[in-house]
Each structure stands twice: as structure tokens, then as C-alpha cells.
């Protein structure tokens, strides 16, 4: 039994703050938990804070891309925030540019980006 990454709800945004070095199983569990919580809470946005992560390897990178894709299908936009500069340099050299993933420098900018995206979004409800 491994630990699970907590998912917090703030209004219609789900906040995932990754604070520990992730085992692969925790990454897979997070994908499942987040998908379920988006549907349960009818969330419109997901913010994933990775500022505590010292590395992002291809496994975690793929998880971020997959979560963004799943969220979009479920009607929520994902923003990944807080990536460290050394992590960004390493990811690009690794061959992962996270093309389909929206990013922001920090939590505040990430939430701002979600709000703007929603106001300008083609679908409103």
C-alpha cells in the first residue's frame, strides 16, 4: 500500500500539490483519483503544483500529459505550475516538451490562466 497524493477542491478547481518524490504506483493512482474527482466535483480546472519535484522523468512527464488529456475530455483544463528551471532544461533535453500541457510559473498565474481560459472559452454554462 503506497501513499496517495492529496487532491484539494477550491471552488470549481482541483489542486494537486505534489510534495514527495513519487513512486510510479503513486503516479498511476493519482491519474485514477483525479479522473474520478473531476467527475464527482464537476471541476472545470485542475492545477498541478510540481514546485517540490526535483526531477521529472519520462514516466512523470507522460503522466502529466495523460492527466491533461483525460481532464480535457472530462471538461476540465489542466495547468502544471512551479516547474523548476533545472527540471525544465532536463525535460527538454530528455525529449519531452509537454506540448499538450498548459504551464504557468506559479500557482497564482496558473489559477489566473484557468480563469481567463474559462471566460474566453467557446463553451460556457
Amino acid at each position, binding site marked *: 500500500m503506497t501513499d496517495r497524493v492529496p487532491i484539494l477542491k477550491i471552488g470549481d478547481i482541483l489542486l494537486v500539490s505534489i510534495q514527495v*518524490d513519487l*513512486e510510479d504506483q503513486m503516479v498511476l493512482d493519482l491519474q485514477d483519483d483525479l479522473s474520478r474527482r473531476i467527475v464527482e466535483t464537476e471541476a472545470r480546472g485542475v492545477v498541478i503544483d510540481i514546485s517540490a519535484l*526535483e526531477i521529472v522523468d*519520462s514516466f512523470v512527464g*507522460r503522466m502529466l500529459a495523460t492527466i491533461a488529456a483525460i481532464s480535457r475530455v472530462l471538461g476540465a483544463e489542466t495547468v502544471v505550475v512551479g516547474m523548476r528551471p*533545472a527540471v525544465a532544461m532536463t525535460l527538454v533535453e530528455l525529449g519531452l516538451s509537454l506540448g499538450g500541457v498548459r504551464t504557468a510559473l506559479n500557482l497564482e498565474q496558473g489559477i489566473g490562466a484557468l480563469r481567463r481560459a474559462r471566460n474566453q472559452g467557446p463553451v460556457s454554462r
Partner: protein
Amino acid sequence: MIPGVEPAEETAAEESHIVANADVVKARQTVRAYAQRARLSLVDQTKLVTAASELARNTLTYGGGGTMRVSVVTRGTRTGVKVAFHDEGPGIPDLDLALTDGWSSGKGMGLGLSGARRLADEFDLVSQAGKGTHVVVVKWAR
């Protein structure tokens, strides 16, 4: 490791087993500690730890588990960190293919081996079908 280059001398080393997911996390922490000891820059530490994470996962997933050996190495006035992974799994039948970006035999994005090679300063891979795989990466302090 590279023809014509004198071999690096090891000054400290430690070996650990990689048989479970938690060992991949521990492997990253061990490599980070050695990278700091060898005074690699933060970016180089991050690159080496990321490369080690990819290779440790390969050892576990494809090699069926194995060992990791981390050491501080010196060559002349240079200091670096060498990380060697060894397994006795099925081996890699086609090395050229396995080192191609995007090629994957199963889960993953196929960036593990090719990405690790790009992130390291030196990369050496020996694999024999049915006998196992030995991968070495070295990162030098600048």
C-alpha cells in the same frame, strides 16, 4: 569506456538492489547525494538523477530487477559521478532500435534509454540476449 580515453578512477562507491518501485526512488536519492558530493551543478545533478531514474526503471521493468552501483570518479583533474546498472534479464535484442527516440517495447514513451544517453556525458550499454544488460552513465563536474 571510450577507446583512447584513460579509465576513470573510483574514489567512493556504493551498491544497491533495484527490485521494487521504492528502490527507484531510493536510487534517485543516492545518485543525488553523490552528485552533490562531486559538486555537480544543480542542472547537471538534475540531468544525472533523471537519467538514473530512467535507467533504474528499465532495470526493474525490463530487466526484472538488478543492481545499481554509484561511484565518485576522477580522471586527471576532473571529478564526476558514475552510475552503473546491471540486470540478468532478457537483454535487449536490437540495441540500435532500443536507442531510437520513440521506440518502446511496452509502457513508456520510448525516451528512457535515448534520453538517458543525451542527459549523460558518457554512456555505455552492453546487452546480450538471454544474459542481461549493463548500462553505465557518467556526468562530470564542469
